[in-house]
Structures are given as C-alpha cells and as structure tokens.
C-alpha cells in the first residue's frame, strides 16, 4: 500500500497508519456506554472537575427547586402555574446542557477505552519458564515475574513481559502491537534488536530474556493506561484555558448575583430561574463542555496514527514545535541506499574493482553491502578464495570501514572516504587525484561515496544512490509556511549532505554528524527559545530524546530510547514526526477555534436576554432580534446554548480541518470563521427557535 506523502493529513483514513483505528466491534457499544457515562458524570465529585459545567449543574438544581415551588425564594407576580411551566422548561434545558457536555467527554473517552481494549487483547497472563540461579527452570505465571528475572521463551510461546534478549537468536511476531505481520529478528548484544515487548510471540527458535519491567509497568500496560486516560493530566494550555474560563465564570457569577437589587431598583424584578438562565447563557458553556473532549480526542488521533503519546502535553507540544530534527537515512531518504556504479581509479578496470568490492562486501549483511554484491555479480565479478577461510570485518563508528580479511593476510576495506584514505596511507599506498574527483562527482549527485581498497592499493569509489522520499519537499514547504524549521542530520560528507538537503528542501543540515551532535543541536535551538522535535531509536539517542520537547522513539528501538521519549511510534516510521506536528497544530487550532466561537456566542445570547428582561427599563430597542417575550427569549437562548454542544461534538472529536498556514493567517481565519460566525450564527438560530416556540 502506498503512502501519499504529498499531503499532510492529520487523520489518515485509508492507509496503513489507520490500522489501529478504533475497532468496529468496540464502537458499536460506544454511544450506549457514553450515554451511561454522561449520567454517571453527574456525580458532584466528578462534576466538580469541570467548573463551567458544574455551575450549570448547580443552576439546574436551583431551577428544579423553583419548579417545585415557584415562590421558594420570594413571591412571584406571575401565575404560579405558568411560572412553574417556564421553570420546568428551563430545568430540562439546563439538564440537557450538562448531559450533552458529559456525553461529549464520554464519547471521547469511550474511543480511548475501545483502543485500550484492542491493546488489552494483546496482553494476557501467560505461563513463563523462569530460569533460576541454579540453572533449573520453574514454571510461573507471567504476573509473578519481576525486573531482573530471566525467562526462556520457545517457539510458539508468548513473551511474558518486556525485556532484553541475553541468549539466542529468534524471529518474533510483533503484529499484536505494531500490526506488522513480518516477524522481526531478535538477538542479544545489538542495540536495537535485543529489545522485546511482552505479548509478542516467538515464531522461531528460542530466546533467553532478561525481564526489564515489573507487572503492570510494561510497555503495553503503560499504553493502555494512557489511551484510557487513567493518567491524563491537564496540559499547560488546558490549565491556562481553565483559568480563563474560571475567571469569566466568576465575573458573570458576581454580575448576575448582584443584578437582583439593580433590577428591583428599575422596577423590573427578576426571578431566580431567570437569573440562573442569564448566568448559564453568559458563561462559556460551549468550550467548557467540550474542552476535555478536545484534549482526549487529540490523544486518540495520535493513537489512531499508531503512535502512543505518554501525555497530552507531548501532543500539544507537537503543535508548538519550531524546529524538526530529522535523520537523513530512513526519514528524508529511503532507508536502503543502493550501489549504482563503480568508479575505478589508479588504472584499475571496472571489472577489477567489482571483484574487490565483491570480496569486501561478502560478509556485509546491510542493504548497502548486499546491493554492492548484487552490482558486482551483475558485472560478472567472482571471488577467487574460499569464503570459509576469509574473515568479515564489521563496520564500526570508530573505524567507519568494513571489509574482509583474506586467508593470505590481504585486507580489503570499503568505507568512508577519509577512513579509506587513512587506511591506504597506513599501508604505504598513495592517493591519486582522480580519487578526489570521483568522490566529488558522487557527492555532487547527492550520493554516498564509499572508497574501496586492497591493502595499500586504492581501487575506486562506489556510488551509493540515495533517493529522497517522494513528496517530502512539498511537506517541508508546508512546514516552512507554518514557521517550522527543518534540520537534517547525516553522517555523510558536506557535499552529499548539501545536495540531499537542497533536493529535499530542508532549511539546514549538519554533515558528518555523530549521534552526540543531536543533543548539541537541540540545546542550541532550545537556547533560542524554540521547541524541538526529533526521532531516535538507539540507546545513544536517549539523552537527546529526553532533551527534546517532543521525542519520538521508534518501537523497534531500545527500551532506553522508548523510556526517554514522550512518544513511541509503533510503525517505527520516522517520517511520521511531520504528521505529529500537524496533529498537534490541529489540536491547538481546534481548541482556539471553539473558544473563539464560544465567547463570540455570548454577544448574541446577551442581546437575546438582557433587552427583553429589562424592556421596562427602556432598553427594549436593544432587542434587535425582535424576540417575542422574555420567556421566549430565555428559552430560545438556552435551547441554542444546549444544542450547540452536541452540534460541535464531531468538530471537537475530529478537529478543525488543518491547513498549513502561518500563525497570523490562522488567527485571521479563526477570527473570521469562528469569531464572526460565532456572533452571527446564534442571532439567526435564536431568532428561528424564538419563532418556532409555541409561547407568546
């Protein structure tokens, strides 16, 4: 299945990322469960968590009391039965307002729970074969395992808990958590391939695993707790907005509470039910009711992307990111660089060079090494020694070379140009000027040059072709328009890096970078007040992942990387960082848009209620909507107030449509659509409801 990289789509629906979407079976009961939860949230101990809606709930109780006895707080002038009817209608509408707000939150939570159920199905208690210190094997339940225990897992068995492989090589089916059906090779010692997750299945051979997580603290357990919202704490933006809403509510509470004496003074006494209605109409109930649903839905959107965020804070931080640090290989270019050409030097022919390159890559299991073997064999190259008598030399970050030691003490090496130069000189060889020409030629093409030599004899340069992922340039353009800077990190030389950087359209690049450079770049950007996002998978990435404001660890990465990061990508696709930025921005835009809309709504509700209540005080001309009566105006405003919450639930859950615009453009657009729309829409809606209401 092909990924469309040309568009930023925060919630992909028909591609492989959508695999962990909420299961259909779980969604069937979602709304019934949400309705039940909406009533459960009426418990004052839960309701008190949402200040705006708690006030509406208290108001509902007060209007209910005056429905039972309209004269409870003072004798009313109107017919008690009519007053009771009006109070009853207000009570019902206020109650529905609270229920709708609770329902919105419950639906958002329900989606998370469905995802948690899906994850939970991959976690089950299993029998583990624990290796005792004396070498004996004891059969225990997986819940009895503790950090530091060693277990043996054989073919066909589930891995009982998160751990590190210490002995054995085996294929592990991780589809339960990643959805990827191809098994992954796990072996000890290697930084990445030694980490295993509880709930995954060994499909070949057997492994001895050192348990690294206590029961309930494993990767899947933490994921379940997070998507269920068990550990959900408010993000800084949510806290700021909660304070703002509380201040607004406080102001309106004081205004309404002190309105009664003023009303009496102008000979327009108002009932308690009307005061409660006025209060509810003025406080920002729309955003108050949808605020937590927006936050929970943001987490769910990230989870639908097959990314687990450790907190809502991380998702929000994605939206505020100013700088993206991206590795070249696998993120900007396709992971596998392929050998495209042999450029011989020193008077050697292409065939001679191909034979040496083949011999030097015999033991190289990397995709690059295999592609060199393929190209050499295509050119007719053959080895003239027994493979069993030769020894492979593995690549290391220190030597930056790999190769083969032949039986007759001949050393064949291939690797970074500087490293090969040094190796040739150390063996008494010379570097012809043509070698530099070849190296520059490859670099200018954006390829990676690899030098090849046999002892002190330099044979030439292998051109490893790097292919920039399609559509990436457009996405970086979009990010640039949003004010996000992209920095590419690569171990390649400066010329290659600059060519790839130009081709991909990144803003800056760091060539010949080591993993340690990542943390330096992050610190440098952060010192300028910027928020930085990065991806990583190795243990050496862990400090940088912890330092970054948004650190996305690959699921294939080490336990250390996953623990340092605040997000884990189950698909291990580093390109997803760009989508995460889009999701974060969408979350912030949605919250901003609905807050603007909610506050703009107040203007219409104010003009609906105040002029009709105080018409006798000479402000009847402000009744610009020409509403029939105070009773009709109040009911129309409250009905609108209640109905707008469920009407906006889809927008809160799915997010405002994301457009890659600058902050200024977004602000203008928000003010125009949600600000102006928030002023006009309720005028029209309240007038229509007023006309439809069967009261004079």
């Amino acid at each position: 299945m092909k990924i469309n990289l040309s568009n930023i789509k925060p919630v992909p629906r028909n591609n492989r990322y959508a695999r962990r979407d909420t299961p259909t079976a779980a969604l069937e009961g979602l709304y019934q469960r949400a309705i039940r939860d909406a009533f459960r949230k009426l418990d004052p101990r839960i309701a008190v968590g949402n200040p705006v809606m708690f006030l509406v709930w208290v108001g509902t109780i007060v209007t209910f009391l005056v429905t039972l006895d309209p004269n409870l707080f003072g004798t009313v002038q109107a017919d008690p039965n009519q007053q009771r009817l009006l109070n009853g209608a207000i009570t019902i509408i206020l109650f529905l307002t609270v229920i709708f707000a609770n329902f919105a939150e419950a639906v958002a939570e329900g989606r998370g729970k469905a995802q948690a159920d899906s994850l939970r199905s991959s976690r089950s208690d299993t029998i583990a074969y624990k290796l005792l210190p004396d070498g004996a094997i004891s059969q225990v339940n997986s819940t009895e395992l503790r950090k530091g225990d060693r277990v043996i897992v054989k073919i066909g068995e589930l891995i009982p808990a998160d751990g590190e492989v210490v002995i054995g090589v085996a294929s592990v089916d991780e589809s339960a958590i990643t959805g990827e059906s191809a098994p992954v090779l796990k072996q000890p010692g290697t930084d990445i391939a030694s980490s295993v997750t509880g709930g995954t299945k060994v499909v070949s051979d057997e492994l001895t695993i050192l348990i690294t997580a206590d029961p309930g603290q494993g990767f899947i357990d933490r994921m379940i707790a997070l998507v269920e919202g068990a550990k959900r704490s408010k993000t800084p933006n949510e806290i700021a907005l909660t304070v703002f809403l509380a201040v607004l509510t406080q102001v309106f509470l004081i205004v309404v509470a002190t309105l009664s004496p003023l009303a009496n003074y102008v000979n327009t006494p108002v009932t308690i039910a009307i005061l409660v209605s006025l209060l509810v109409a003025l406080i920002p109930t729309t955003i108050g009711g949808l605020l937590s649903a927006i936050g929970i839905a943001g987490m769910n959107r990230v989870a639908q992307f097959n990314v687990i965020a450790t907190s809502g804070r991380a998702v929000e931080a994605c939206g505020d990111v100013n700088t993206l640090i991206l590795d070249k290989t696998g993120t900007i270019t396709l992971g596998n660089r392929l050998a495209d050409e042999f450029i011989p030097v020193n008077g050697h022919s292409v065939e001679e060079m191909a034979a040496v390159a083949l011999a030097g890559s015999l033991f190289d299991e990397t995709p690059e090494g295999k592609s060199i073997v393929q190209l050499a064999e295509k050119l007719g190259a053959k080895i003239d020694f027994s493979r069993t008598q030769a020894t492979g030399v593995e690549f290391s970050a220190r030597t930056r070379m790999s190769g083969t030691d032949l039986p007759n003490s001949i050393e064949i090496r291939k690797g970074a140009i500087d490293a090969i130069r040094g190796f040739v000189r150390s063996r008494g060889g010379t570097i012809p000027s043509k070698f530099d020409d070849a190296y520059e030629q490859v670099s200018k093409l954006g390829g990676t040059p690899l030098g090849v030599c046999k002892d002190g004899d330099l044979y030439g340069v292998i051109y490893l072709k790097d292919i920039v992922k399609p559509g990436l340039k457009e996405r970086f353009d979009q990010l640039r328009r949003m004010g996000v800077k992209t920095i590419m990190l690569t171990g390649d030389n400066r010329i290659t890096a600059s060519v790839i950087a130009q081709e991909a359209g990144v803003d800056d690049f760091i060539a010949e970078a080591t993993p340690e450079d990542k943390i330096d770049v992050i610190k440098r950007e952060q010192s300028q007040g910027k928020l930085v996002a990065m991806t990583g998978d190795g243990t050496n990435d862990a400090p940088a992942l912890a330092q970054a404001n948004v650190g996305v660890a690959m699921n294939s990465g080490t336990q250390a990387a996953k623990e340092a990061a605040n997000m884990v990508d189950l698909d291990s696709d580093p390109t997803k960082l760009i989508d995460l930025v889009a999701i974060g921005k969408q979350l912030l835009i949605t919250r901003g848009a609905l807050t603007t809309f909610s506050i703009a709504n107040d203007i219409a509700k104010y003009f609906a209620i105040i002029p009709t209540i105080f018409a006798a005080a000479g402000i009847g001309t402000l009744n610009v909507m020409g509403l029939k009566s105070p009773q009709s105006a109040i009911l129309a405003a409250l009905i609108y107030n209640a109905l707008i919450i469920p009407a906006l639930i889809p927008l809160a859950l799915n997010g405002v449509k994301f457009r890659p615009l600058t902050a200024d453009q977004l602000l203008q657009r928000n003010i125009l659509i949600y600000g102006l729309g928030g002023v006009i829409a309720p005028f029209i809606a309240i007038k229509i409801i007023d006309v439809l209401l069967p009261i004079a």
Partner: protein
Amino acid sequence: MISENLVTIWQVWCRRKYPTYLFLALCLNLVFASTVFAATGDAFSRSQVYALGVLGIGTVCLSIYLFVVMFQPERF
C-alpha cells in the same frame, strides 16, 4: 461507654467532611437568614428567607470554588 460513643461520632465527623460543611452552612444560615428576615420585614416569609440564605451561602461557596480553580487549576 459514652466517651467511646463520643470518640466514634468525632471520628465519623472528621471523616465525612461534606455533611460537616453542610451542617456548618445551615448553622451559618441561622444567623444570615435571621438578619435578612429582620431587614426585609414582611416582604419574605420565614421559609423564603431561609431558602434565600442557603442560596446566598451557596453562591458564595461557588465563588470561593471558582477562586480555587483559578489559583490551583491543575487540581481540576
């Protein structure tokens, strides 16, 4: 025996804070409602004055609650 009962009542009293708050509010209302009753004369009946007193105290409590939200928002 009596002292044991008193200790038990005191422990329950300390443990269940919401009924305590409610009880204290009603006690406060005794003072509050009487003042309102005295000030308004015949405009309100005794029961209306008590109801208004409870409403007034409730409103003040809501206001205090909103101040708590403003200064300790992470608790909500």
